[in-house]
């Protein structure tokens, strides 16, 4: 980065880079990061990126996200790159990967789906039919899901 660093380097934690511009807050929601907890979270939005044009970056201090947590990201941010930081150095690099099944990540948007009754106890299940382009359907009712709806319906 040639320009001045917008956020200082963190000592320990996780850096999520290459989040599509404007989606960082959804990523926080999706990873169930408790913003009220003591963990400092730095968020940079809409910075220039060679790869994406513009991007968001998240730095979460003192917390190493697991691969499973990161896989949740794949739905809205399949290009994201992740670095686990230990003592100011990159200790591990990870990529997100979209799973074939998404359990309790987002709810189905179809108004006549059986899962619309939120008292029904079985988990929300989505099937990833295609990864490029991303095509997701409800496991129960089979309806195709729009990406905007999925983001709106994140659990």
């Amino acid at each position, binding site marked *: 980065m040639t320009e001045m660093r917008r956020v200082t380097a963190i000592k320990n934690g996780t850096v999520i880079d290459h989040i599509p511009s404007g989606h960082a807050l959804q990523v926080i929601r999706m990873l169930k990061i408790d913003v009220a907890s003591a963990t400092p979270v730095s968020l940079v939005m809409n910075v220039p990126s060679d790869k994406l044009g513009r991007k968001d970056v998240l730095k979460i201090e003192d917390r190493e996200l697991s691969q499973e947590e990161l896989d949740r990201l794949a739905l809205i941010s399949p290009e994201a790159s992740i670095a686990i930081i230990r003592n100011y150095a990159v200790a591990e690099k990870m990529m997100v990967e979209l799973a074939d099944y998404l359990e309790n990540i987002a709810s189905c948007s*179809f108004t006549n789906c059986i899962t619309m009754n939120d008292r029904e106890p079985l988990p929300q299940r989505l099937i990833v039919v295609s990864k490029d382009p991303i095509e997701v359907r409800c496991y129960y009712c*089979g309806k195709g899901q729009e990406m905007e709806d999925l983001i709106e319906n994140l659990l």
Partner: protein
Amino acid sequence: MGDVVTMDDLSDDEIISILDEAERLIPVAKGEVYAPLLEGKVLANMFFENSTRTRMSFEAAMKRLGGSVLNFSSVGTSIAKGETLYDTMKMIEGYADIAAIRHPRQGAAQYSADAVEIPILNAGDGAGNHPTQTMLDLFTIRQAHRKFEGLNVVLVGDLRYGRTVHSLSHALVRLGARLTLVSPEVLSMPEEIASDLRVKGGEVTEVETLYDQLEDADVVYMTRIQKERFPDEEEYNRVAGVYRITAADLNGSKKGMILMHPLPRVDEIDSSVDSTAAATYFEQAFNGVPTRMALLCRGLGVNIPEKVK
């Protein structure tokens, strides 16, 4: 597992062997032979939505095979008191060996299959799937033509909300038939299904007018156009009138062509057609009994002998 939620739960070979078994069960379905293959077994007919043919043919199938039936209807029951589908199915699992479920919400059959251990047969979920209807439709087509490969099957009417045509079109493409889809644009096949049919390599043509299609058809499958799907009555009348078949319309059609309808019909098929050789819809309704017999036996793991007597 003996679940049948969508036609994907059955392989091509299984479809054919179930049709063969259903054929062997015809004398039992007609009451000419008594074969108590399911004696002591209990079917739960879980109808959360009204049904005449499907519910009764499941019941007839079970009883003709010596089994018994628990009939559930959602009117005035625990559902009205707000019980979840999960709880209802968990309860019924304790009373029955297999369940047929019809539900107004899409995905209800898959949901039930996940909730309980007993086999679930989807008897129609919202505008989703209706695979046991598809099996009886396939049975009817095979009875007339002895094959599926290369047949030109013309599906007519409400292809958007008509669940019978969703399951049927999947199965026909898998078995090598050609599909001609005839519907007004507002009632055309849902995109997920149309795209699946194309991915599976189906030869599918979509058109809006019916009469040009009658000459080249091996099967014409009519469906009811539902008035409530239309924004205004004028639009409905325009569309409904376009897809109406009388005996005279069938003059130029191929020998051996069959005219099917899942019933109930309103006025898509004029009663003048009933006495023509093409009229197959009442046989089709009967065929629900032997095919559902074969599906019940499959679900319960009961083999159907080569010779049923």
